[in-house]
């Protein structure tokens, strides 16, 4: 029996943001994640946009948390050493009549509290967004939109939470929760039992299933699929802003996104998914996306695409569900965290902190909270001149493993020491294999480093956890 004050279920951006926030207080916290690594759920496959608040109904919870999150994320990013860039967004209108729609979006967003909005005309657009289709008549400009690397945010949140005492349990799916008097017993991986006074359900797509473990039936998650396609980094300067079409009733539409790694992203679609594992992309999805973004920026070509993925939005009604269950004191649900959940994460963490207080747990601030995290080093994000100093410090920075993205052996080892266990985990942390050759050149080298650092044979290595072994057999074991 492992005793904790707080147990968080789910290691996505919500679970880790909550863990980091609560690690400021004198309490014992555990975070349980079913996958081999953090950020392998919804938080790995999204657009990475820190929304300004133009896309959410003004009186909704998600609207309020989006705005607050957008503001908070700036200081969080700085403390954690996560790269956040304020690039601004443009919602574009092709017809003069649509100006009225832009004005309505502006009014709604302003009533929510979004600052700096303005409607810009053709001349402004020609100067500030040169590749935009000249037929765009006007756009709503929201300067406070930004971008972040979603998975690196999660890893850095978790690392900082761990620095401040949070215990992390990976490959720990929660399978049963038994309410006791003033505490919960949480069963994971068949036999391990945790005990905690407060349980926070941040299980993303599976938050309804976790809620059902304690008999809560009114949360039902309908996954909505979004396919996204990444373009070659050579097209980094395709646009200067995030480009949005006019929104439809169900979605923000298909966007042209700047990513913090440099590759533009086009997408996402918004279609009901077959299941919570339905992560396939489709010919139809690609065709739809291309047609739609080429309308905004005609120079985008199919051959610019170097990668793609599909993500599932955990939709449970129109809004986020964030509540302390009065009938089950100590149980807090954070469910239905669809877009803009990434943006809202820091604000959600504060809201959950307040709910924890309501539940009766005393939160006394730690005297020594370590606010800052030592940033990871990425060669690709620096000018090469500064690489010289790095290489002098550690020769392995000069040992390039991934040539497309310029990732060194030292960064790969560093990623593993910080928790990477799989090829995908290394990719998300370092970008190795994320470039145009897609690991064609570097996969075997990364496997060697991974095998060495983890002390595992090559056939035990996986792409993203058990069942995704990379190879079938190694000759190392052939009889002599």
């Amino acid at each position, binding site marked *: 029996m492992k005793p904790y004050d707080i147990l968080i279920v789910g290691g996505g951006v919500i679970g880790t943001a909550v863990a980091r926030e609560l690690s400021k207080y004198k309490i014992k916290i555990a975070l349980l994640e079913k996958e081999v690594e953090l950020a392998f759920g919804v938080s790995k496959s999204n657009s990475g946009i820190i929304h300004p608040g133009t896309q959410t109904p003004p009186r909704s919870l998600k609207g309020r948390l989006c705005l607050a999150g957008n503001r908070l994320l700036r200081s969080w990013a700085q403390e954690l050493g996560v790269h956040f860039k304020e690039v601004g967004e443009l919602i574009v209108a092709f017809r003069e009549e649509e100006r009225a729609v832009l004005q309505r979006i502006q009014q709604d967003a302003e009533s929510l509290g979004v600052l700096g909005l303005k409607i810009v005309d053709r001349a402004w657009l020609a100067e500030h967004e040169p590749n935009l289709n000249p037929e765009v008549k006007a756009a709503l400009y929201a300067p406070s939109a930004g971008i972040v690397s979603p998975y690196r945010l999660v890893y850095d949140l978790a690392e900082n939470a761990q620095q401040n005492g949070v215990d992390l349990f990976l490959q720990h799916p929660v399978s049963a929760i038994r309410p006791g008097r003033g505490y919960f017993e949480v069963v994971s991986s068949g036999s391990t039992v945790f005990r905690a006074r407060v349980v926070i359900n941040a299980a993303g797509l599976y938050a309804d299933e976790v809620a059902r473990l304690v008999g809560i039936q009114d949360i039902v998650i309908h996954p909505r699929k979004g396919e996204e396609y990444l373009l070659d980094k050579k097209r980094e300067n395709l646009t200067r802003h995030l480009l949005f079409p006019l929104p439809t009733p169900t979605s923000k539409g298909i966007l042209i996104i700047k990513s913090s790694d440099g590759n533009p992203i086009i997408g996402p679609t918004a279609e009901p998914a077959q299941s919570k594992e339905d992560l396939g992309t489709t010919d139809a999805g690609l065709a739809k996306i291309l047609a739609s973004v080429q309308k905004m920026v005609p120079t985008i070509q199919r051959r610019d695409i170097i990668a793609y993925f599909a993500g599932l939005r955990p939709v449970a009604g129109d809004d986020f569900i964030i509540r302390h269950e009065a009938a089950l004191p100590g149980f807090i649900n954070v469910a239905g965290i669809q877009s803009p959940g990434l943006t809202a994460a820091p604000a959600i963490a504060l809201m959950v902190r307040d709910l924890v207080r309501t539940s009766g747990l005393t939160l006394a601030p730690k005297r020594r909270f370590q606010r800052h995290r030592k940033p990871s080093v990425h060669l690709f994000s620096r000018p090469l001149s500064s690489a010289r100093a790095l290489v002098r410090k550690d020769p392995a920075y000069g040992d390039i493993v991934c040539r497309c993205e310029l990732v060194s052996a030292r960064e790969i080892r560093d990623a593993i020491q910080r928790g990477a266990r799989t090829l995908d985990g290394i990719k998300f942390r370092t970008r190795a294999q994320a470039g145009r050759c897609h690991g064609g050149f570097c996969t075997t080298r990364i496997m060697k480093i991974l095998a060495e650092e983890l002390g595992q044979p090559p056939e035990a290595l996986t792409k993203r956890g058990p069942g995704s072994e990379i190879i079938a057999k190694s000759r190392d074991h*052939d*009889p*002599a």
Partner: protein
Amino acid sequence: MKKRLTCIACPQSCLLEAEVEDNRVRSISGNKCPQGEIYARQEIENPLRVLTTTVRSPGLEVKLIPVRTDRPLPKHRLQEAIQAAHKIKITRPVRAGDVLADNFLSLQVKLIATRTAK
């Protein structure tokens, strides 16, 4: 019995038709040159293939040394030959061309290293 096969003696890739009896070629048609006939006879009566694979080389600068046979061997023994090669281990430096097995599988073919490694 008729057998059809593509001649690979040159890039013309003639489509050959052979009349075969008891695994012997009686006649050939479709070939544009005499090479076709030689190829078809060999390929039907006693098909031969050069084997290329790798042998392990623990301790050398590369994990595996590529090898080949100096002459082709009967096609139906390729699989067996691969298995035998898998059992070989080299621990001393080799040069491309070094003979690793003289009478490999008693087939009167040599197994030759095709890469130099220290």
